């Protein structure tokens, strides 16, 4: 008896907390069917009159290009960036975690130092560098650096994870005939799945939502990503159809939510398997 009331209470609490956390999303979704006056004028979730065309109208975008273009652009930017980030971070992290080479500690501290640099201080030199390379108004400023493990955070994350894997695994693999490369691909990579997935998910969501870097490097509206497209028509001195903006916000978070739901089991799975089996 007490146990069941206990669990009922626990569930109620969890449901209440869940609703609190979900409310902004629910509001976002519900508000995409409201008029401007209803969005700002009342705090109720459901409007008196529904506006149904926010999704179709919003999808058309403003001016020459619509959200179809923005979504395709974003995929062109995000997918290579994520894949290359994973590949490069794993390789660099493997080097730091398993090999000793001259200046290792120095190089490691340099890498960690780049983590501490404030973004604002590197913006202008980076911009000038990319201009000299002729990469402005293309996606290369995002894709190419990711192939060289420039996200110190991800490299560090992978290093920490690899350090947690026992070296005995490597040694036994070497006895079985592996070289240093196959140790990585056949033994360590499968065990790294959870870390790799977290790198992938984070990089996906961050790149997908990134506004500031995109606006600095991309000038042509033709090449705009979703996050730029969303704010294309936001200006203080003109009437904004907020329901369309909110509708497109709903659409644009869908990929992030999907990725998270489908990949999240790998977060947990695998952590328990990092051991030596008899």
């Amino acid at each position: 008896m007490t146990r069941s009331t206990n669990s009922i209470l626990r569930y109620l609490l969890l449901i209440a907390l869940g609703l609190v956390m979900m409310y902004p999303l629910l509001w976002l979704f519900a508000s995409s069917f409201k008029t401007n006056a209803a969005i700002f004028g009342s705090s109720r979730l459901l409007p008196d009159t529904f506006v149904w065309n926010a999704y179709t109208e919003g999808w058309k975008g403003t001016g020459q290009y619509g959200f179809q273009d923005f979504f395709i652009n974003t995929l062109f930017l995000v997918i290579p960036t994520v894949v290359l980030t994973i590949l490069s971070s794993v390789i660099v992290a493997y080097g730091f975690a398993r090999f000793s080479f001259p200046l290792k500690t120095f190089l490691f501290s340099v890498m960690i130092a780049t983590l501490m640099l404030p973004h604002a201080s590197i913006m202008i030199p980076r911009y000038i560098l990319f201009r000299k390379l002729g990469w402005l108004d293309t996606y290369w400023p995002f894709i190419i650096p990711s192939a060289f493990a420039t996200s110190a955070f991800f490299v560090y994350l992978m290093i920490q994870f690899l350090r947690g894997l026992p070296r005995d695994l490597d040694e036994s693999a070497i006895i079985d005939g592996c070289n240093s490369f196959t140790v990585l691909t056949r033994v360590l990579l499968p065990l790294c799945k959870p870390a790799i997935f977290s790198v992938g998910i984070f990089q996906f969501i961050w790149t997908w939502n990134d506004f500031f870097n995109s606006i600095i490097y991309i000038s042509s509206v033709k090449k705009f990503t979703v996050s730029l497209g969303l704010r294309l028509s936001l200006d203080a001195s003109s009437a904004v159809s907020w329901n369309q903006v909110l509708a497109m916000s709903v659409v644009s978070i869908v990929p992030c939510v999907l990725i998270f739901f489908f990949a999240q089991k790998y977060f947990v799975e695998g952590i328990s398997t990092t051991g030596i089996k008899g």
Partner: protein
Amino acid sequence: MKKTKVLKCLLIALFVLPALISGCASGNDSGSAGADDGKNVTLRFSWWGGEDRHKATLAAIEAYKKIAPNVTIEAEYQGFDGYQQKIKTQLASNTAADIIQLDLPWMRELTSKSDLFLDLGSQPGLSLDGFEKTLLENFGTYNGKVQALPTGVNAYCLIINKSLMDKLGIPSDIKWDWDTIYEEGKKLHEKDSSKYLLLADHGILAIDFTNMLKQRTGKEWIDDHYTLGFTQEEAAEALAWIDKALKAGVYQPLGESDLFFGKGEQNPKWINQEIPMTFAMSSLYITQTSVLPQGTETITALPVIAKDAKDTSVLVRPSQLLAISKSTKHPEEAAKFMNWFLNDPEAALILGDVRSIPASKPSQEAAVKAGKINAEISNAVELGLANAGIVDNEIATNSEIDAILQEIIEKVSYGKASPEDASKELIEKLNAKLKELQGRN
């Protein structure tokens, strides 16, 4: 085994790819903005705005193709967020568009350190005749050169929900002064405690305060010599009025209205028609009134001016400015386009009021005649131009000065300091800051 092969290929690709890309990229670097037969010209034009402005500007660019078929104009448009940072980055590294839309508050900084823009006064294809001299002198001329031209004119005004005023029995066709607005506001709030006469956040209250000072003294409130244009007594009096008005319910309490700082149109009391009036620049008229139910009648009027005012203090300023980047490869063509864009009646008809009332006379006349301009915005700008007050100098609009002013206004509004004490503190802080600012130059 297969897996390793795939991985090896990927690895090789990883290191070869960048080399290939950078090879290609350096090849087409110069081609993008150059002319291929000496006649065909590509110009880049960047601006920020909302949906209406994007559509109208793109249509104007399309129309320009007929006038100058050899000129292609690449549009780089976006919302306001991030625009300033982007433009500054581009200007710092010589990659800015040929024609750039700029905002007035950035101009001082952009023109003081380096020479970024063309002298528009000496461009043969560009006529400045249509622009009012004072407007060009006050807002477009820096270091003795016309560096930017106003796209349109905005004026500070009252935005009034006339339907609501009629319903509440408050006259909406009178010239407000500080006494009448206080009396009416007090009466309204006493009759119905959920209603207030005026919508204002601390930014608007700060403008009210400086307006009161300017009207009383007839001088800039901080002059060019880094000295204050008012006495402590005058400041205390103005603050006392704000304090009195807030206590009487003329304004919505600041704690509620400041939740929507800078976004008055999102304030539920305004949307639900419990506040009938607000102060704003005329360009915000559409935003501010678009949230009201259909059929609501809204009008604009002169802002509050004291009965015995020595200066009206009505602010008139360009909505935005257009400049031509010094690094442009085609200054002539850019100037010609700008001339058409700002002066030509045909362009004015396409653009309407998306950049407020056109600043150039021929454009303005054409657009007004064709009914392309909202009558209420036009009314506000006309009133503003006819009653224009002192133009604030650069020191008075400095962001650090502004921060001090807003802090004092907030202290008084939240009842943390009496008008007496607050005015004393204001003068002390301003004098210290002015000394510091003067020392920096």
